[in-house]
Structures are given as structure tokens and as C-alpha cells.
């Protein structure tokens, strides 16, 4: 490859990213025309493209870029104002540059399209606008009028000979076509696999500078990355087995510092680093899809004569790259539906007492080990009765059955194939064009789609997709002699039963076991009972047969919170989620399976499925937006018992997780107690030593409260975890002392609160110094 080829490749990769950024910047600029910084950034980007064109000898592209730069220059020096016509022209300009770049990428040449019209119209707009301004005339086109130079809908891989650019304003097609959305990327098949470092982390401001992105980016086949991740997953399991074997061997041989042990440690840590690096290659922020949407929605809105404000939340939510590609089309389709059918025309909205501009919100967040994406509009909504009638008319249900169905269930009919032809959709003011395709695509990757709507208020479509390909933090529990994994994302807290106090908290409410947790009643599900395993599988009689021991795993799914009673919690572990046969998924309570370090297969529970199987009622009056999980107004504390039997409270915000280390994973190093954990050494501090007094000698497994990484890789050694409390009175700092923040009153008793941060940030960490077991 010669120097020119290198430069060309670099240019193509960089330009394609720059153009995406231009799209976003232009739409943003339309919202805020006075953003001089953004305007400068746009100008620089175009200027760079022009410069490189001259160097590489791309005459047409150079000419177009020059016209664009000229228009932008007028904008920048303030001689014209940004209005819809100018924005439209600039967006057309971006599209044309894309088309030409696509041609260059495919053929090496600029194609035989003739773009002089566009160059000219850009120049004309620049001059006219300047002239109009000089006259003091009003050139501001109202937002809703079809712009003279509105861009054509982004076409499928436009042929270079037929530029889809709006050379003739009247040729603008209706944007609301019912067919599946076109891929907006004019560079077919060979879209660059931008590593997160280049694509995600780079800030818009830095993007326009001529940093050669291609130097730090290579193209890698996604399938290859997939098999790499799979192999690393296998390596992790083999590593775990190796560790177990080495421990056994060294225990019998008695050689503590054998070569074997050292090599095993080395393999251990390298594997852990390799695993996290391999996974990162596949994880991408959802922004990869979302970043095309401002432009899409803007074009759709203009095309439909609507005014739509799109807000995007959670664009940094990461998910597997292959899933990103799969959700692109369904999401595009849902947005199209929302703009086209959901949001009313401005006039209608005003008549209905709503703001003229419709609101469209796109949210992404992690929930229960899944990624949830919500598309919410404040449009006309869907009349559930209309859907019900339609379902009866189409013979999907009888009238009697339909009357009994919940609204939620009725809305599911919208996803039935052919449920809504274009005509009927308009009748029910809504959705349905191709919704079955959306559902099929989402379900193909193991996801779900739900729709919720209220007439006149709006519609929310909720897409949930699993992280099947990802590594997931999970809690390993046991029940009925078997182990199960529970996704950590759904776990809110753990409550140990067994103390006589907590057992009394299990009561009956109309026959269903519940537990009084702080100020509310928590429905309980007994895992043994649910799965019909182990002895005493029957659900105990409330209030009488409450189990004498066990742990309540408090799970939150959507707006529901419930307690899953298990026999015990083994530990937290990062697991590789493996798919299970469809016939087992159909049972509804398993999300998959995983292989633990000892080679055993363990089923992963699906918290949502468990809630459904146990018929946990949704909490009334709860916000449906689980995204806005309510932040506890009052601080909560984890109450632990130390080795010396003293009870202390740790602020829950300082706790990452709880973990128990077997004796063989504990070691004294440099006078400190450390635990081996996935290739790392974790320092364990003793709470007694932190406050005052000597730590308890180690005799068996050690339970530790692991602090978030921001507090240093440290665990606090405790004897027992007792409960999580939410005291009604605030912390009283009057009794603050060495290592203590103060006291809180819990059920009438004062309890010391550990000053975790203070102790860890002191120059010679007191709590580490005291961690030596004697």
C-alpha cells in the first residue's frame, strides 16, 4: 500500500465520522443558531475535507466542499442568518459529500454524478441570504413550511450516477414510507469498525481537527471478535479449574511458593486482563445507533410538517456490538411511527392545548441484566378500545375474551402480523405499520417489545434486549441442594433470615407470604416452592412455617419489588451467559445458564419471569419509568457484626458488594491480610482494628464488605452481615471519633457509623495498618 492509499483510507474513515458529526452539529445548530463554537467546528471540518480533496485530486468533491465552506463562512462571519433553508441546503451538502465519498470508497473515483447544481444553489443561497439581510428583509422561513431546499430522505446506498440530493425542491418525497427504514449509511457493507477509543470517546470538539483516526483504528471482522470472546470465556473457565487444581496440589505438597503457584497466579492475572480487554472490543455505546437519530427525526418531522423535539438519554449505555446492529432498524422504525402517526400536527396540538412542538424521548438504560430502550411521545396515543374492536373484527379473539383482556394484553395485538394495514392504522390514530417486523427482529435476539398508550397523552414503546453475549455480574445462591445464578442488576439487597427478629417479620397477607421491610410489605417468593425442589417444597403456611434460616434476595423488576427466599447466598461472581435450549426458555423462569469455576452448569434465573410465575402484583401508584429508580431520600446503612461482636453501620453508598472468601484464598502478604480474587489481591481490613482494638485471628472463611473501586481495592472484614437499615433520624456527628463518622439511631439503639472514606484517605491508612492478623 503506497502513501496515497494510506492517506485515502484515513481520509475515508475520518470523513465518514466527520459527516455523522456534521449531521448532529447542524441539527443542534438549528436549535441554537448562536452557537459560535459549534459553527466554527463545522467550518473547520468542511475546510479539512476541502483541503485533503485538493491534495488527493478529487475535483468534484473539492468544488462542493468549497461551496459549502463559502456558505458556512458567511454564516460564521454573521453576514447571513441560519434559517431552515440554509440548514436544508447544508444537510443536502452533507448528503452529497457522503455520496461522493461512497463512490470513492467503492470505485476509487468520484463517480459521474453532476453536482454543479448543488454547488450553485449553495452559492445562490449564500448571496441571496446576504442580500436579503442587507435589505433588512425577512428571510426567516417559518419552521413548518416545507423548506425550498429540504433534503430528500436518506436513500439506500445511492448510486453515484443518481445523486439523491434535492436538486429540485419539489421532488422531495414523503418521508413517511411504510417500508422498512433504509440504512442511512451510504457506505455499504464496509462501514468502519470504529473502536470505542476512536468513535465513542472522542469529543465532538476534537473530532474536526485533522487527527488521523485511521492510525489508531483497524477494521476487524465482527465474527472474529465474537469467536475471540467465546475463546476467552473458555479460557476463564479453564483458568478457574487450573486454580482449583493448583490449590489442591500445593495443599498436599505443602510447598507454598512453588513455581507452579507462581505460574498459576501469572496466568490468572493475564487471563483476567485478557477477558476484560476482549469484552471491551465488543461493547459499544448505544450512541452508535442514537447519533443518527437527531437527523432522522428532523428530516421526518420536516417531511410530515410537524415540529418535534427529540431528547436522548443514556446514549452511553453500552451493549454488545452485534446487538447494536440488530436494533438499528427496529428503532428507526419506531421513531418513524412516532413522528408520522404519534405526534399530531402543530395545529391539532395547539387545539388540544398542548405545546405546538411534540416531545419525543429516547432513553436507554441497563435494567435487570438487560438493556431497556424506551421511545416515548406525547402524541395522540392509541385508543385501546379501537384495538380491541379491531382484534375482534379480525377474529383474533372473541368479543367475550377481548372484554376480559387487560389493556396491556390488548396493545400486544398491534404487533400481530398484518394487524394494521395503513388504513386501519390511521383509524386507530396510530401504530402498527410493520410492528410485527419490529417484534420479530427484537425477539430474534431474545428481546421483548411492549407498548403502552393513553389517548391524548402519548405512547411509550419499550424494547428490552438481553445482554446474552455479555459477561454479567451475578449472585450465586443455593436452594434445595442446587445452585442458581441471579443477575446482580435486579438485586436490591440481601436480608438474612434466621435471627429470631427477622423471622417474625414474615406474615401472611390474604394467604400470600409477605415480609415487613421498613415501611412497606414485600411479597415473598420461595425459590424451593417455585421450582418444586428440595424438602419442604410446599410454600410454608404464612406466619407459622416461616423458614428458620435462609436469605431474602430483594429483587426489583420494573416497578415490582419482591423477596426471593433462598437457602443461602454463596458469593457474587461474574458469569458468562450461555443460551439454553428454547424448550427450556419456554419454562419462563430461566434466562440462560453458565459454567462456574468448578465446571458445574448453573441455571440463571430470570427475575422478570420469576415475578410473573409467582404472580407478583405490580405496586400500585408506581411510576412506570423504572429508569428513574427512586433514590432513597434517607441514607441507608449496612449493619455488620465485627469479630469482637460489636455492631457497626457502614453507609450503603460505600458498599459495592458482599463476598465470602474461603480460608484457602486468604493469605498474609506484607503483614496484611489479603484475599485472592480473579487475579487480583484484595486487601482486607478489620473493622475492629479500624476503630480500636486488635483483630480477630482467622480460623475459617472470611466475610467481607467490598468497597467501590473509588475507595481503593479494599474489603472490610466482618463476622456477619446483619441487615440493611434506613434510620429515620439523621446521622449524629457528635460522637465522631477515630474511624467513626458518628452515630445513628436504629430501632431505639445508637449504632456507630464507620468513616470508610476518612480511614482510607488518611496518609497511612489506619485500617490497613491494623489488618495484620495476630
Amino acid at each position: 500500500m503506497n502513501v496515497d492509499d494510506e492517506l485515502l483510507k484515513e481520509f475515508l474513515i475520518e470523513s465518514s465520522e466527520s459527516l455523522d458529526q456534521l449531521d448532529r452539529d447542524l441539527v443542534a445548530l438549528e436549535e441554537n443558531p448562536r452557537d459560535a463554537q459549534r459553527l466554527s467546528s463545522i467550518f473547520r471540518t468542511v475546510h479539512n475535507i476541502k483541503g485533503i480533496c485538493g491534495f488527493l485530486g478529487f475535483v468534484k468533491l473539492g468544488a462542493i466542499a468549497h461551496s459549502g465552506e463559502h456558505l458556512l463562512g458567511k454564516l460564521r462571519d454573521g453576514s447571513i442568518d441560519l434559517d431552515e433553508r440554509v440548514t436544508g441546503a447544508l444537510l443536502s451538502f452533507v448528503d452529497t459529500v457522503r455520496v461522493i465519498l461512497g463512490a470513492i470508497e467503492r470505485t476509487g473515483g468520484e463517480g459521474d454524478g453532476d453536482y454543479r447544481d448543488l454547488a450553485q444553489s449553495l452559492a445562490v443561497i449564500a448571496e441571496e441570504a446576504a442580500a436579503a439581510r442587507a435589505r433588512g428583509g425577512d428571510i426567516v422561513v417559518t419552521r413548518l413550511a416545507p423548506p425550498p431546499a429540504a433534503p430528500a430522505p436518506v436513500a439506500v446506498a445511492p448510486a453515484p450516477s443518481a445523486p439523491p440530493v434535492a436538486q429540485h425542491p419539489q421532488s422531495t418525497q414523503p418521508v413517511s414510507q411504510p417500508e422498512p427504514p433504509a440504512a442511512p449509511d451510504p457506505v455499504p457493507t464496509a462501514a468502519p469498525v470504529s473502536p470505542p477509543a476512536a468513535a465513542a470517546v472522542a469529543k465532538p470538539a476534537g473530532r474536526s481537527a485533522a487527527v488521523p483516526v485511521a492510525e489508531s483504528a483497524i477494521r476487524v471482522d465482527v465474527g472474529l471478535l465474537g469467536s475471540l470472546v467465546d475463546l476467552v470465556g473458555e479460557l476463564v473457565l479453564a483458568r478457574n479449574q487450573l486454580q482449583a487444581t493448583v490449590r489442591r496440589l500445593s495443599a498436599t505438597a505443602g510447598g507454598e511458593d512453588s513455581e507452579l503457584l507462581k505460574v498459576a497466579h501469572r496466568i490468572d492475572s493475564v487471563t483476567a486482563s485478557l477477558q476484560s480487554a476482549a469484552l471491551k472490543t465488543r461493547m459499544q455505546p448505544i450512541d452508535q445507533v442514537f447519533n443518527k437519530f437527531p437527523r432522522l427525526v428532523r428530516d421526518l418531522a420536516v417531511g410530515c410538517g410537524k415540529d418535534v423535539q427529540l431528547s436522548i438519554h443514556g446514549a452511553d449505555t453500552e451493549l454488545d456490538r452485534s446487538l447494536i446492529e440488530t436494533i438499528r432498524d427496529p428503532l428507526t422504525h419506531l421513531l418513524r411511527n412516532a413522528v408520522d402517526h404519534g405526534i399530531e400536527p402543530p395545529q391539532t396540538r395547539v387545539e388540544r392545548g398542548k405545546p405546538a412542538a411534540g416531545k419525543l424521548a429516547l432513553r436507554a438504560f441497563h435494567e435487570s441484566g438487560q438493556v431497556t430502550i424506551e421511545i416515548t411521545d406525547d402524541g395522540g396515543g392509541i385508543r385501546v378500545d379501537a384495538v380491541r374492536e379491531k382484534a375482534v373484527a379480525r377474529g383474533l379473539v372473541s368479543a367475550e375474551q377481548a372484554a376480559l383482556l387487560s389493556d396491556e394484553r390488548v396493545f400486544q395485538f398491534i404487533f400481530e402480523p398484518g394487524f394494521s394495514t395503513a388504513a386501519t392504522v390511521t383509524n386507530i390514530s396510530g401504530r402498527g405499520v410493520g410492528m410485527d417486523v419490529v417484534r420479530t427482529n427484537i425477539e430474534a435476539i431474545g428481546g421483548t417489545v411492549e407498548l403502552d398508550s393513553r389517548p391524548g397523552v402519548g405512547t411509550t414503546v419499550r424494547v428490552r434486549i438481553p445482554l446474552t453475549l455479555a459477561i454479567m455480574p451475578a449472585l450465586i445462591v443455593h436452594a434445595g441442594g442446587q445452585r442458581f445464578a441471579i443477575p446482580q442488576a435486579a438485586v436490591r439487597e440481601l436480608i438474612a433470615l434466621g435471627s429470631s427478629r427477622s423471622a417474625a417479620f414474615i406474615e401472611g397477607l390474604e394467604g400470600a407470604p409477605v415480609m415487613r421491610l421498613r415501611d412497606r410489605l414485600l411479597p415473598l417468593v420461595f425459590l424451593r416452592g417455585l421450582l418444586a425442589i428440595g424438602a419442604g417444597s410446599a410454600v410454608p403456611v404464612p406466619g407459622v412455617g416461616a423458614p428458620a434460616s435462609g436469605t431474602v434476595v430483594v429483587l426489583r423488576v420494573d416497578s415490582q419489588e419482591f423477596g426471593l427466599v433462598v437457602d443461602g447466598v454463596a458469593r457474587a461472581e461474574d458469569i458468562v451467559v450461555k443460551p439454553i435450549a428454547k424448550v427450556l426458555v419456554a419454562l419462563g423462569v430461566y434466562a440462560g445458564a453458565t459454567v462456574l469455576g468448578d465446571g458445574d452448569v448453573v441455571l440463571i434465573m430470570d427475575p422478570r419471569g420469576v415475578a410473573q410465575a409467582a404472580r407478583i402484583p405490580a405496586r400500585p401508584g408506581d411510576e412506570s419509568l423504572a429508569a428513574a429508580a427512586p433514590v432513597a431520600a434517607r441514607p441507608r446503612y449496612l449493619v455488620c457484626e465485627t469479630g469482637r461482636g460489636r455492631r457497626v453501620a457502614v453507609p450503603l453508598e460505600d458498599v459495592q458488594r458482599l463476598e465470602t472468601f474461603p480460608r484457602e484464598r486468604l493469605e498474609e502478604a506484607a503483614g496484611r491480610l489479603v484475599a485472592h480474587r480473579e487475579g487480583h489481591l484484595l486487601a482486607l481490613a478489620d473493622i475492629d482494628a479500624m476503630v480500636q482494638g486488635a483483630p480477630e485471628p482467622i480460623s475459617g472463611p472470611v466475610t467481607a464488605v467490598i468497597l467501590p473501586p473509588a475507595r481503593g481495592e479494599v474489603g472490610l472484614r466482618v463476622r456477619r452481615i446483619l441487615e440493611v437499615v434506613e434510620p429515620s433520624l439523621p446521622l449524629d456527628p457528635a460522637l465522631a471519633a477515630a474511624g467513626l463518622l458518628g452515630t445513628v439511631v436504629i430501632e431505639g439503639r445508637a449504632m456507630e457509623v464507620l468513616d470508610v472514606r476518612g480511614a482510607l484517605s488518611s496518609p497511612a491508612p489506619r485500617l490497613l495498618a491494623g489488618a495484620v492478623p495476630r
Partner: protein
Amino acid sequence: MIAAADGRAGPGGEPAMRCCAFQVAERWFAIDASRITEVLREQRTTPVPLAHPAVRGLLNLRGRIVPVIDMRTRLGLAMATDTADGAGRTNIVIEVEDEAFSLLVDRLADVVEIPLRSIEPPTTADRPGQDAIDGVWPTRFGLMHLLDTGRLVAGIAAATAERKAR
């Protein structure tokens, strides 16, 4: 479907089907050999609560999670005394619609060429668990039952769906 199976010439030049024969509860069965991906000894499995009784558990096949179908239960041939247990049964791993399943059988026999002409319609299709029998082939050891792998799995899926609906 045996009729749709890839007919190939047997020893006598007539169309035949290559099958793998095995024993379950002292009866003979056979499946299309091309479905088989590998054969393993009986392995430790993880039970799947609530699953169809024939799903004995999950097997870790080099990182792939494979459900093990106990063919005695699946074919409704549970023996009064579980004599063969511990003596080591055999897992026949098959591929059905891109998913792997393992059939746990008592004893694996040979690969046999079954002449399509001599396959007769099943006689025991009405017996519970034997919905997957596609045909029979009389041999000198007794009747060889030809099984359809797709229906072996589909029968379990159908029973699961039915129980869930109730």
C-alpha cells in the same frame, strides 16, 4: 422424516438410510446417523427444575450448554428397576434446528444401513412417549424403531407449552 431422508444405495444397490442403532430398556431404536455430532459417556448433569420429566439435566459440552434427554422417560419405557444406572449409559449428541441435544441411551450399537423398502409403518404410535416413532424395521433381534429427532424435541416442547397453559 424418513421418506425425505437422503436415500443412498445399500449393499444390494437399493436405496437405504444410514442409521445409528441403540438400546433403551432392552428395545432397539435408531436415528438418522447424519444428525449425530458426537457420542459421550454418561456425564454429571445439572437438573432443570420444572422442565419436562424427560429432561434429565444440562451438560457442559466444552462450554456449550446441552440438555440431556433421558430416552427411557421420553419413550415411556421407564424400567421398574433402574439396573442400567451407574453401569454407564451413553450420550448421543444430536443437532436439531441449530440446537444441540443429547439423547441418553442405555447402550449404543452400530451404524446400520436400513433399506427404505423394508421400513414399515409404526405399530405403537398410540403409546405415550412414542409419538416420535417414524417407522419400524424388523430385524432378527426384534423390531428396530426409527425415531424422528425433530419430533423427539418437539414433543417435549409441546408438553411444556401445554403444562404452562394449564
